[in-house]
């Protein structure tokens, strides 16, 4: 058994290594003219996206959720250029020797703090704070400390926030070093992290960060899940229709990130490529050991397992109820159940998850983990209800009749006779459904839950290494599924009546 797993993991590793070596067609861009027909990567929902489309109408523009995904794509030859903001671009070129940015900016955009429309009091207060920070030189000092071209450690002043008071929730997409990112202690930091803390200090309110996908930030602000967005967001006209912005705190240039020409100045970096083992060791060190990133993974893993198990329990209970309603002869009960099943099975889980978080529980202060458990549980219930129904209907009617004829009530017949046979029947399908639930939970990053996938996103945003964290997370998901599968298989074995006798026989 164990050797099977090891060989399976090796296969995954080899295939990935092989695939990552494919698809390299070099196109070197040295000016905006070269980029006219290039493949350009942008971040979904950022100004870079609109600029790229406007400036390079003939180019192939591809949208990515996060900068590290785009960098990984460029490294594997799927992109020729990336349009992103200046601070991100220096960060990327700092950590990726083969990439550089074109000196000329594409556009200058104002970065500002976003606030829900109508919240004039807070808007005025934050505006006042930014004016203050501008005049006393804090912003200039922050800029020099965070947006620097070398790899020396960041210098961050300690800000002592008040412990009590109304919590100020800050929406961030902390995969954007140096604007906002997660440091080795798992706290959100960066230029905007510091800014958010300063705002909290001046407002005399404790600060909490809600780390989510960039595109989920505005819905979160609108629904009141967060009070402010401080994460290098550009104040575009389109966004201004939905939310308010303070005065800009940073003039953000959009620049183009390109690959350096081969054989040129940076030839030294590419000629003597390190061996596979030493690069794996390096990757392991930078992705796992450095800044104690394994802790991040460990926390993510715990969250993933917790959501999976709780959602399964909740979904199984709810599914039993739905199944009961669905099997009722009364159409007042079975029609709602049918509708529930049809809707839940016909909606993508991600959409459903975001609907629950940003619409249903918009004005309720509820833990995103709980929301994830509810959403996945409801989805799981729809599937498990149908699984239960087929299982129950699959038990021969004669079994029920025999029970009733013996003098069992309907309920007792179900408990003692139908249910044990149903459980044994449905377990194989149920197991599969459970495993797909475990994997489905990888989308909870959209509602600011830090699970295993999100942990790998955070690591990738710091190291810009696509291969290692992704393969590792794949392996971790596989292991979680495998361990949980074993426990269900044990249950399957236990419910097989003949196992009892085998046990006696082998004892």
């Amino acid at each position: 058994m164990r050797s099977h797993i090891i060989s399976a993991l090796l296969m995954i590793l080899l295939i990935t290594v092989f695939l990552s070596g494919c698809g390299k067609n070099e196109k070197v861009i040295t000016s905006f003219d070269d980029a006219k027909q290039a493949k350009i990567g942008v971040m979904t929902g950022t100004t870079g996206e609109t600029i790229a489309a406007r400036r390079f109408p003939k180019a192939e523009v591809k949208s990515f959720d996060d900068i590290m995904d785009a960098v990984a794509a460029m490294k594997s030859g799927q992109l020729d250029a990336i349009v992103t903001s200046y601070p991100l671009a220096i960060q990327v070129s700092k950590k990726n020797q083969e990439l550089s940015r074109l000196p000329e900016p594409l556009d200058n955009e104002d970065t500002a703090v976003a606030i829900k429309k109508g919240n004039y009091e807070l808007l005025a207060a934050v505006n006042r704070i930014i004016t203050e920070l501008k005049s006393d030189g804090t912003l200039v000092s922050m800029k020099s400390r965070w947006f620097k071209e070398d790899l020396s450690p960041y210098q961050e002043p300690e800000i002592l926030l008040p412990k009590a008071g109304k919590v100020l929730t800050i929406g961030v997409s902390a995969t954007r070093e140096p604007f906002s990112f997660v440091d080795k202690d798992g706290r959100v930091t960066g230029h905007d992290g510091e800014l958010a803390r300063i705002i909290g200090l001046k407002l005399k309110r404790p600060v909490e960060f809600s780390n989510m996908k960039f595109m989920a930030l505005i819905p979160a602000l609108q629904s009141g899940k967060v009070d402010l967005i401080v994460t290098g967001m550009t104040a575009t006209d389109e966004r201004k229709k939905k939310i308010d912005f303070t005065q800009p705190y940073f003039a953000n240039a959009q620049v183009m990130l390109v690959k350096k020409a081969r054989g040129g100045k940076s030839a030294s970096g590419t000629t003597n490529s390190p061996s596979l083992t030493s690069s794996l060791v390096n990757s392991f060190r930078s992705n796992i050991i450095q800044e104690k990133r394994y802790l991040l993974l460990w926390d993510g893993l715990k969250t993933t397992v917790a959501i999976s198990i709780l959602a399964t329990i909740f979904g199984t209970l709810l599914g039993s109820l739905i199944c009961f309603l669905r099997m009722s002869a009364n159409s007042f009960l079975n029609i709602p159940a049918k509708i529930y099943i049809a809707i839940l099975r016909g909606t993508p889980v991600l959409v459903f998850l975001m609907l629950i978080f940003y619409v249903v529980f918009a004005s309720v202060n509820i833990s995103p983990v709980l929301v994830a458990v509810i959403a996945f549980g409801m989805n799981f219930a729809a599937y498990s209800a149908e699984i239960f129904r087929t299982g129950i209907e699959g038990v021969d009617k004669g079994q029920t009749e025999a029970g009733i004829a013996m003098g069992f009530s309907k309920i007792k017949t179900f408990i003692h006779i139908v249910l044990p046979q149903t459980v044994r029947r449905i377990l194989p399908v149920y197991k599969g459904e459970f495993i797909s639930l475990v994997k489905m939970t990888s989308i909870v990053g959209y509602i600011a839950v830090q699970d295993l996938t999100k942990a790998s996103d955070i690591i990738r945003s710091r190291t810009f290494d696509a291969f290692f964290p992704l393969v590792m997370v794949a392996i971790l998901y596989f292991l979680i599924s495998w361990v949980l599968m074993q426990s269900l298989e044990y249950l399957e074995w236990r419910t097989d009546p003949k196992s009892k006798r085998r046990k006696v026989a082998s004892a």
Partner: protein
Amino acid sequence: MIQVEHLSKKFGELVVLKDITIEIRTGEVIAIIGPSGTGKSTFLRCLNLLDQPSGGSITIDGVNILDAKTDVPKIRQKMNMVFQSFNLFSHLSVLENLTLSPIKLLGMSKKAAEVKALELLKLVGLAEKACNYPDELSGGQKQRVAIARCLAMDPEIILFDEPTSALDPTMVSEVLSVIRRLARDGMTMAIVTHEMDFARDVANRVLYMDEGLIYEEGTPQQIFENPQKEKTRAFINRVRSFNYQIRSPDYDLYAMNAEIEIFCEKQILPKKTRYNLLLLVEELLLICNPRLSTEILDLTIAYSEKKETLEVVFESSGDALDPFDKNLQPDELGLNIIKNLANNMEYQRVNNKNRVTLMMKKTS
């Protein structure tokens, strides 16, 4: 013990039981026989309310079980049922099948229930299968376990719903002998069965059901040796019949012959018999031919599986006329052929009709 009065049962438009009135007394063994689809099983299932009756009343030990206040599960504990398809609980071992209801329903201790179950398994000859699961038993063994499972609840009556119909012929007798033994021990039983010989020697009373009614009822001797009613007789003798109507002298002989052949094939009659039968019918029709232009002639061929007899009946309206009257025939050839093939040639005048009955000779 059980009084059934004017019981009726409809499934939607379909009336299965019309009006059933009967009393079952303690210690009686009642065999219920009759053709398929006449409501025998439905009657049995109405007795323990597996099927809810549409009308009438059922009283058990003075309690009307159709009353909404009656604790039906409690009553069912006293009248267990053996099914055609065994219905052993497939997730439980043979022993657990027997102990489940005494433990859960009678509150018996596990130990006591197991001791009793093993005793009952010995009674049906399956003690060594106690730890096996139902899918490891043969049909006959399953049914014996099912009977033992009923006995585990100490029932006052056991209802058997075609207990041997799903069994291999080789396994029927092992199940029947267990039931015979229960009958000897004085167990009250109602048995729906197609095993006539078994019904005859195990039952005190036989009910012949047909058309949703108890068509005829009596001791086994009355029903099996001297049934009073036509349908009972046909059923007991396992008579199958074939009808053909001839309306003109230009009838289609070949079509008729083909139908007779199909009938014969279904009854698995030997080729020789088939040939003789066709010859006999043809000769009879030749004799009757002059009258076909004015009269309608009904031909009936009846085969009794039990007696292994083949009866041919001709019925025609019109004036009294004996076709066997030698004076009416141009020659004696046809009559001789007929005499050769059949015995018991009879002419009767019934209900203003001429009826000729012949019994085919057995072909050796």
